[in-house]
């Protein structure tokens, strides 16, 4: 029974980070209809940035410092990536597939860039917090609690920004009607780039959070890309709440399938969920768009 509790906690922790990353993916697709194939590489980017700060430069101040420094970096990276390679494609009618292609090329470039710069060996990061909290007969690692709290805070903060601030409203307006938003004076192109930047921050932060539990490796992002997709499709494109539920359901599924049948089966299980969802309810649990 106790091991089930551990599996449950692991599903909950990973699920919360997946939720953060899936929300980032659904944001960009929902607002600008651009599908980012390099999402997994952005995940690794977060991990590597944290590694460079903590292990390579030996920065003091712990993870607070890392987050303070890496969030603007990730934001800028995402913003200018959109401006440089996605925005110029928008003029053409077949831009959607071109965006997928160009981001896939970017993913290959980045992954191999990591391999050249950091080497093929995995990098590990120190845990955010040592120790564990006693719950009845068992323990929950403080690290897991921190990861859970931080990712949920991230999602809630994002939701608050989206619902209550001017920039959040501008983002929602562009998502609902790009032409109309432009007419009332919202800088559409800048919103597109900003959402891309925000989603990069979300997935990069996810990378930093998960890097201390697992590892950072050059090709490690592909798994994350697939998982974020499946969660987004299962929860419904463009729905934050749907993504949240889907992330926890699939985080649990992953933990229990991995525990019972072995990690190799996780991908098959996720794929099964994806196909079933699309066959029965193509818009996902709470999808708003298509």
């Amino acid at each position: 029974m106790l091991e089930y509790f551990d599996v449950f906690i692991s599903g909950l922790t990973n699920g919360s980070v997946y939720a953060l990353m899936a929300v980032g993916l659904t944001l960009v697709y929902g607002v600008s209809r651009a599908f980012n194939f390099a999402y997994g590489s952005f995940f690794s980017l977060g991990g590597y940035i944290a590694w460079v700060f903590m292990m390579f430069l030996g920065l003091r101040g712990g993870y607070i410092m890392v987050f303070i420094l890496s969030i603007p970096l990730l934001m800028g990276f995402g913003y200018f990536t959109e401006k440089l390679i996605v925005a110029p494609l928008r003029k053409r009618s077949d831009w959607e597939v071109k965006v997928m292609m160009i981001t896939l090329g970017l993913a290959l470039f980045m992954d191999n860039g990591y391999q050249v710069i950091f080497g093929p060996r995995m990098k590990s990061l120190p845990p955010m917090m040592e120790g564990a909290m006693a719950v009845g007969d068992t323990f929950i690692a403080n690290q897991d609690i921190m990861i859970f709290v931080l990712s949920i805070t991230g999602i809630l903060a994002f939701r608050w920004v989206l619902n209550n601030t001017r920039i959040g409203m501008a983002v929602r307006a562009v998502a609902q009607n790009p032409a109309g938003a432009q007419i009332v004076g919202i800088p559409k192109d800048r919103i597109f780039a900003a959402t891309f930047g925000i989603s990069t921050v979300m997935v990069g932060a996810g990378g930093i959070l998960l890097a201390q539990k697992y590892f950072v490796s050059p090709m490690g992002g592909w798994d994350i890309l697939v998982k974020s997709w499946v969660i987004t499709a299962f929860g419904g494109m463009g729905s934050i709440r749907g993504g949240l539920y889907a992330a926890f359901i699939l985080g649990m599924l992953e933990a229990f399938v991995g525990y019972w049948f072995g990690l190799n089966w996780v991908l098959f299980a996720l794929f099964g969920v994806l196909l079933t969802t699309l066959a029965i309810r193509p818009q996902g649990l709470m999808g708003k768009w298509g």
Partner: protein
Amino acid sequence: MNWKRMSATIALIFGAMAFTPLFVGGADHLMHILIMCLIWAVVASCWDLIMGFAGIFSFGQVAFFVIGAYASAIFSIRFGIDPVFAMPMAGMVSAALGVLVGLPCLRLKGAYVALVTFAVHMILEPFLKSGMGRAMGTGGSRGILTIPPMELFGITFSADNKIAVFYAALVLAVVCSVIIMLVIRSFWGTAFLAIKDSEDFASSLGVSAFKYKLAVFALTSFLTGLAGGFYGHYVGMLSTRMLGIDLFVMLMIMLVIGGIGQFPGAILGAIMTVAINESLAPLGSYRPLILGAMVVVLVLLLPDGIIGLLRKFAPGKTEGGQTVAVESGIQ
């Protein structure tokens, strides 16, 4: 691109290719490169048909290629089927799986289709390595090492006899190109154009988008699987390394260089990309890095591929820019 130009371009490319063994027939490695050019030309053309003309964002073409290669190898090794028959059977397996994947995802919109088909690509490697795959004869992570070569009219089409393989591949490429060209020029092609321009209007006229999309999914999976089977019997060994992202991106470069929806362009793209890839070989581990950067640069700089570039300098006599644009499905 009109009918005459299209067939003339294809005839020119393959006609020129047909004479190359006269000059480089002795050089084993060059012959291998030429054979690979032809095989990738088939795969890239199929991808162009499905993505450029039918407007389906399929990202599973490499997966169907690998499925075809494995299926054909397994048929000939485990069941002792002659490779000549095993290849079309493998094509059928690919087509069946294509339909299976197509059924749920063709009702969906753009990015979802890419998502599902790419997921097929992603889970194929763990599947081939899993216990289930091993039980089917995929050889797990070791792969399949001894695939019998194809034999026809007393000629063995093995890696030792590259000139024979080359002409067999040429026949395969020509047949596939003609099929693709016929599809583009047939009622299907017109239906796709209509669906791409306005799906609602096309379906209100009684054009069933679903039916045609499923049919083209099956057809391209079949041809791609066939090419995969051919590749397996030629090379004689298979492993899951083909499912690496660099090969996928290389195929994408073929399409970008050739131009999406500019049909004979994909063939040119395949030839050029294989040549570029070979010339990058001395760079070793920097090669995928450069391939990735190439995609980014080429997508931005060559929006219509090499065919679009050629058209700019040599526009057709009878057609203005507008008709060309409408015919190729690019607005």
